[in-house]
């Protein structure tokens, strides 16, 4: 046994050793790769590669992007959720790329024509090769769509299921026909969610073998995935399109928001994503700024049509709820004015510009309530989660206060995530629910969720007139006529007010002053667009 004093000396030595060891320089960015220089770009493309300013200044730079949670899957047929798909869409080439107006622009699909309501002819861009040498051609497209049909993947890779794709016919090496069972008016939308994968690599290897080693043709190549820690991508030097500016991208998993902000301020990361509005100002520092983006998610209070609360079934009551809440005040005071009020439940540019806004008018609200037979108000509960979107409790409380001011006895019920989602799924909501739907630009989906009995129609709103127009829109091939029907549906549903229409969900990012990157409103992370300043 050691003597007492010897014990103390040992402790001191160990403590000193720890202190010395820990004084090693703090881990910063991953040092630039020291591997041999990559080969010059293969001149295999039939068109000359596009030289941009970025390629002229191609540095060894690394971009570190911090996310709150790890990706779930990097199999292109399985990837779902913004982070997964953003990574896959950097590694793989999509059939089309969605611009910020929600329009699908040609990419792998160089052009497409609708030959008849059920048949789409797609011309595939020539000269794209996967990084293992396989060519991206009609066979690859057919293989991709068929692999997506496997039960394993069917619920994630959406194009075949959503468009009711019956068959992919190969016409020649670079032409395919997509044949659907019913007219698929959303086909172009889904092109922008369809990465194309190499048939041999994904066909000849088991699902498990390739699940964590994606291989494709896109601007970046997969390097490694250390679970729950980081994912590393490296620039594809043989890419057929414009070369991205950053040689390496590292997605670091940092669950705690304050840690993301601290790392940003310390200069250890370049982008801190998923910041909340109240912490956002912390992202402003000597080396970084907070960037606010008006997102696409439509925040609202759903008004349950099937709860025991009968008052909610009267249209006048629902409109009264809309007039009772001062949305501008909440946006300005709580959300720092960083977002816009909803003009419709359909996102621009497809919103009907002639809808009458529900201004803040408590007198009108009281009048409507009296007309509906509730001059003394009624009881209602506002259900929601504690931290789904930011300031959740504050917003629900503020809404409750506005309702109380017009005589409605509103209470707030905060529910656990899974319990809330169950109630949503089973349409067992008890009154109003704080939620955000459909962060996309696609009027067919945005209207779908208000049709009778739809699985996401949590409030169970049902108007046969609305559904009639919807079915017409589905089978209408003329885009102009579809838009007209879209506008008509909005008039009906806006007036019916199945929701208290609130605002677009604002998103905040902390971005290093050394990089030039505009986060997208739809939340996809397309880092090939980022460049060092």
């Amino acid at each position, binding site marked *: 046994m050691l003597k007492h004093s010897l014990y103390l000396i040992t402790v001191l030595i160990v403590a000193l050793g720890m202190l010395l060891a820990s004084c090693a320089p703090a881990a910063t960015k991953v040092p630039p790769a020291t591997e041999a220089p990559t080969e010059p770009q293969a001149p295999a493309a039939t068109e000359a590669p596009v030289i941009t300013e970025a390629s002229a200044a191609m540095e060894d730079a690394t971009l570190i992007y911090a996310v709150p949670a790890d990706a779930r899957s990097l199999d292109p047929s399985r990837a779902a959720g913004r982070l997964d798909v953003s990574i896959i869409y950097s590694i793989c080439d999509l059939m089309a790329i969605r611009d910020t107006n929600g329009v699908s622009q040609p990419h792998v699909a160089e052009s497409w024509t609708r030959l008849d309501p059920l048949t789409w002819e797609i011309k595939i861009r020539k000269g794209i090769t996967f990084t293992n040498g396989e060519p991206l051609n009609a066979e690859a497209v057919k293989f991709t769509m068929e692999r997506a049909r496997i039960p394993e993947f069917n619920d*994630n890779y959406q194009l075949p299921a*959503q468009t009711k794709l019956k068959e992919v016919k190969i016409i020649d090496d670079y032409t395919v026909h997509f044949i659907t069972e019913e007219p698929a008016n959303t086909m172009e939308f889904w092109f922008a969610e369809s990465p194309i994968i190499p048939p041999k690599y994904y066909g000849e290897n088991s699902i498990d073998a390739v699940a964590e080693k994606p291989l494709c043709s896109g601007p970046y190549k997969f390097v490694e995935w250390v679970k729950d820690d980081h994912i590393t991508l490296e620039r594809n030097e043989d890419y057929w399109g414009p070369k991205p500016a950053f040689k390496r991208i590292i997605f670091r998993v940092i669950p*705690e928001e304050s840690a993301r902000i601290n790392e940003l301020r310390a200069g250890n990361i370049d982008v801190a994503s998923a910041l909340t509005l109240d912490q956002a100002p912390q992202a402003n520092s000597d080396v970084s700024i907070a960037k606010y983006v008006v997102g696409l998610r439509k925040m609202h209070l759903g008004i349950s049509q099937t709860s025991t609360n009968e008052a909610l079934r009267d249209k006048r009551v629902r409109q009264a709820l809309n007039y009772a809440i001062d949305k501008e005040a909440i946006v300005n005071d709580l959300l720092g004015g960083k977002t816009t009020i909803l003009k419709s439940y359909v996102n621009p540019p497809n919103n009907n510009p002639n809808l009458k806004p529900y201004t803040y008018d408590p007198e009108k609200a009281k009048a409507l309530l009296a007309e509906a037979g509730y001059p003394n108000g009624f009881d209602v509960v506002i259900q929601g989660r504690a931290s789904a979107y930011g300031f959740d409790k504050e917003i629900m409380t503020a809404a409750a206060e506005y309702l109380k001011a017009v005589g409605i006895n509103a209470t707030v019920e905060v529910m656990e995530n899974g319990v809330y*989602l169950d109630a949503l799924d089973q349409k067992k909501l008890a009154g109003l629910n704080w939620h955000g739907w459909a962060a996309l630009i696609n009027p067919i989906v945005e209207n779908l969720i208000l049709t009778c009995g739809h699985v996401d129609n949590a409030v169970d709103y049902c108007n046969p007139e609305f559904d009639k127009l919807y079915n017409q829109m589905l089978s209408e091939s003329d885009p102009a006529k579809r838009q007209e029907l879209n506008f008509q549906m909005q008039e009906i549903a806006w007036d019916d007010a199945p929701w208290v229409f609130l605002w677009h969900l604002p998103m905040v990012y902390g971005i290093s002053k050394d990089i030039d990157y505009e986060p997208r409103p739809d939340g996809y992370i397309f880092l090939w667009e980022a460049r060092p300043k």
Partner: protein
Amino acid sequence: MVTYILRRLFQGFFTFLGVSALVFFMGRATGDPIRLMVPETATKEQREEVRKRLGLDQPILIQYGVFLGNLARGDLGRSYLQRDEVSKLVLSRMPATLELALFSMLIGIIVSIPLGIFVALKRNTAWDLLGSTLALLGQATPNFWLGMVLIIVFAVELKWLPISGRGTFAQLVLPAVTLAMASLGYFTRLMRSSMLDVLSQDYMRTARSKGATESLVLTRHGLKNALIPVITMMGMQFGNVLTGAFIIETVFAWPGIGRLGVNSLFERDFPVIQGVIILSSVVFVISNLIVDVLYSVLDPRIRLE
């Protein structure tokens, strides 16, 4: 001894079977995981297909039967969300948590034993008050708050240590120290009271009257006996530390099993929840067994039946 160990392991098996049943049924009572798994735009047919594929449309007792059958073959199933085998997932995250747990235990032991002895010897002096108060503070301080304060002071302001992540030794320091704080406080106070108890024993007086030096009395007679309860408690604490590091792992972005377990809870990823809890119960059973055996080795008066 060997029969004792075998019997304990056998009992442990039933414990862990009971735990797995509990977590199986409780997990499924919390609600439907499908919604959390599929994209927002998934159709009703797609959701039903997922439900069928994962076997969630079967009656619950049949699901349990399938689960037991797989368990007998050592198959913990696959994560609903990641498609990885649960055993692979859980085992790949163990090293990170083990590293954190072991290092924080080491800090706890190295600091609390001498500190506890010191304050025991200096009983009722200012040193004692200081030491005991610090120990109490260590136990009482919420560890996520402490972690954040340490990050602000040592990582952000002084820049001596990194802010988060795992990889270098420097990144291990702050999370391990934070995790060690609560055990440190507890063990210091335990060491102190154990030492005080021993110091008042008759055999200590006997040893002194035999003419042994004070340091010999303290170490050979005092310390060895005082350490017994402390070591056994440390053994039990190891199980706690191993499975309870979730908050530290979140604050410091440490990719361990605590985070895996809690994230899977929120996402209703039943196979992973089961895997993590089953593994934890195995760790507890084995560490308790080790502690009991150690106890009998250290104290010959204890006979294991």
